[in-house]
């Protein structure tokens, strides 16, 4: 039973570089929480503070209710999978997995049993006598996982464990990790900058930017109710379309480029002020005509046929940035067409000048 509590944690590297100003996060027992964000946002830093590989400048980290700030990595009862796997090159697969057990004085027979069990789970039984250099990338990855699970720790920490694999192996290992974590029900913290990995693996996501937690929530939360414009743009592919808008003087709608008026009362508090309107490409739908005020007309420029879907790139009158719509593959469109589109109800996001979400229409 080991929940993780990260309580007002701060990290300043010598320099000084403030990598994490102040971050709090609670991870429930058995939960898999994914840290996701762009490169350099402080994901590894946070993970390494939990692991004990990086000193904690301020705040407190507790694992299973026990304050670990001043504990050595070995005393925290955690296991970590590194991006480069960090397998001991001079040891066999067996010894790589047994190393941590030996250091803890586990009897030989028990080590044998534990390593065999872990190897069985991961399909490594035939490779135990090999050295890491005699393994493929995917097999090395599995050994790194084996080294983590063999000790049955309270917490798993993963730092981009799949980023050195090719796309096919990555999606395969992703499923395996998820299955393994479910089976062992070990509290896990998983770092990635790949949003697909984040969405598919995480029970909950922490989306970070410049060391700050932008949003914590389930994959559905962050997709359907992004708390900030950053989260809205980061999650989802192709990226959400952002349009500049202005709240009407009476607060009963938002004026958008191309003469579109979005009727909503959600932005009443921002009457007369600029807002950003976000719509995901997959939430734009073909509309009947282009004359209603709640439809926009897209001058299409580029069509990408994906099979099931078609991505339509185009522009609106009075707005320079490209707008993308993800439409059913059955739709017939050609570049140059004027395409009337409407947004599905409940899928339009409003962000104020500080880029925080005002509401979802």
């Amino acid at each position, binding site marked *: 039973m080991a929940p993780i509590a990260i309580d007002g944690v701060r990290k300043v590297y010598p320099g000084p570089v403030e990598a994490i100003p102040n971050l709090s996060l609670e991870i429930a027992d058995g939960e898999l929480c994914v840290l996701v964000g762009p490169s350099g946002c402080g994901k590894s830093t946070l993970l390494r503070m939990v*692991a004990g590989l990086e000193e904690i400048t301020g705040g407190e980290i507790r694992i299973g209710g026990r304050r670990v700030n001043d504990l050595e*990595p*070995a005393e925290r009862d*955690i*296991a970590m999978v590194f991006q*480069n796997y*960090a397998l*001991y090159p001079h040891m066999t697969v067996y010894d790589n997995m047994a*190393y941590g057990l030996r250091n803890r004085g586990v009897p030989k027979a028990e080590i044998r049993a534990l390593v065999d069990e872990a190897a069985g789970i991961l399909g490594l039984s035939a490779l135990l006598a090999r050295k890491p250099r005699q393994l493929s990338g995917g097999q090395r990855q599995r050994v790194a996982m084996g*080294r983590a699970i063999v000790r049955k720790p309270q917490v798993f920490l993963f730092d981009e464990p799949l980023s050195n694999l090719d796309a096919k192996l990555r999606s395969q290992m992703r499923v395996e990790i998820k299955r393994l974590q479910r089976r062992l029900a070990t509290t896990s913290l998983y770092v990635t900058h790949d949003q697909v990995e984040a969405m598919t693996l995480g029970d909950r996501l922490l989306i970070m930017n410049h060391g700050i937690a932008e949003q914590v929530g389930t994959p559905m939360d962050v997709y359907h109710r992004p708390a900030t414009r950053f989260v809205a743009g980061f999650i989802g592919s192709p990226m959400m379309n952002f349009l500049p808008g202005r709240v009407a003087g009476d607060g009963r709608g938002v004026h958008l480029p191309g003469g579109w008026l979005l009727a909503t009362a959600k932005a009443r508090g921002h009457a007369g002020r600029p807002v950003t309107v976000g719509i995901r490409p997959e939430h734009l739908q073909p509309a009947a005509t282009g004359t209603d005020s709640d439809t926009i007309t897209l001058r299409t420029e580029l069509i990408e046929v994906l099979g099931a879907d078609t991505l339509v790139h185009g522009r609106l009158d009075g707005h320079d940035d490209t707008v993308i719509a993800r439409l059913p593959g059955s739709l017939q469109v050609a570049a140059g067409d004027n395409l009337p589109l409407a947004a599905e109800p409940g899928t339009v996001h409003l962000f104020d000048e500080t880029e925080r979400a005002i509401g979802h229409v």
Partner: protein
Amino acid sequence: MRTKTVTFRHLWLPYLLLAPQLLITAVFFLWPASQAIYYSVLQEDPFGLTTQFVGLENFRRLLADPLYLESFLTTVVFSVLVAGLSMGIALVLAIMADRVIRTALLYRTLLIWPYAVAPAVAGVLWFFLFNPTVGVAAYALDALGHDWNHYVDGTDAMALIVIAAAWRQVSYNFLFFLAGLQAMPRSLTEAAAIDGAGPLKRFLTIQLPLLSPTVFFLMVVNIVYAFFETFGIVHATTAGGPGNDTVILVYKVWRDAFEGLNLGSSAAQSVILIVIVVALTAIQFRTLERRVEY
């Protein structure tokens, strides 16, 4: 290290580029070596008037000469001590430098200095430091209760040349050890720390085994150094004394030739040394190819 294959457009260019090195090798190695082999099979009469061919007689005599065998033993003891001391100190320094990576540059700069000092100058430096009458180090040892006098005490004399020779080699070893340690991904020791290994255990079970190619390479380099490049140090500090206690092989070659004027024996000794250096270099080249993959 990955080797790159370069193709030259003209066949003469590679030879031209190699020429200076080949010339130096010819003038300073091949020619003297052939001379040594030539003289090693000759014997001069005591007045240096006639020479005669004696075959392997010079070698036979050498191997039967207790003084030569003693010098061999002295050299082995000396080189093992020099290699051990200089590598030990260098390794400790490299581990410390690897920890505080920011100061590594300062460390490196300071530590490379001894290597730039000529052996004879290093010898003179240590000679003054350990001079029984005026030397600072000798004075300090006296204060600690050790009556230092390398003119009388053979062990003191050996210690002096070992220190003087090892000191110069520390910087070289340090650079190799530091490079070896820095080439290891940090995550390896981090993984070991998470796996419950303390600093000493991490060093012994992870870092040292991965450094073993470097250790082996440096051992050969240091032994070659102690065997062949320490003439200046011995000459400037103990001059082989007291008695024959610090007469290492290279020193004996020089002394038998220029003080003993026994050219044939000296040449035979040189030939034996050449055989040793060629053998050690061959071993060294082979170890260069052994590398750890991470």
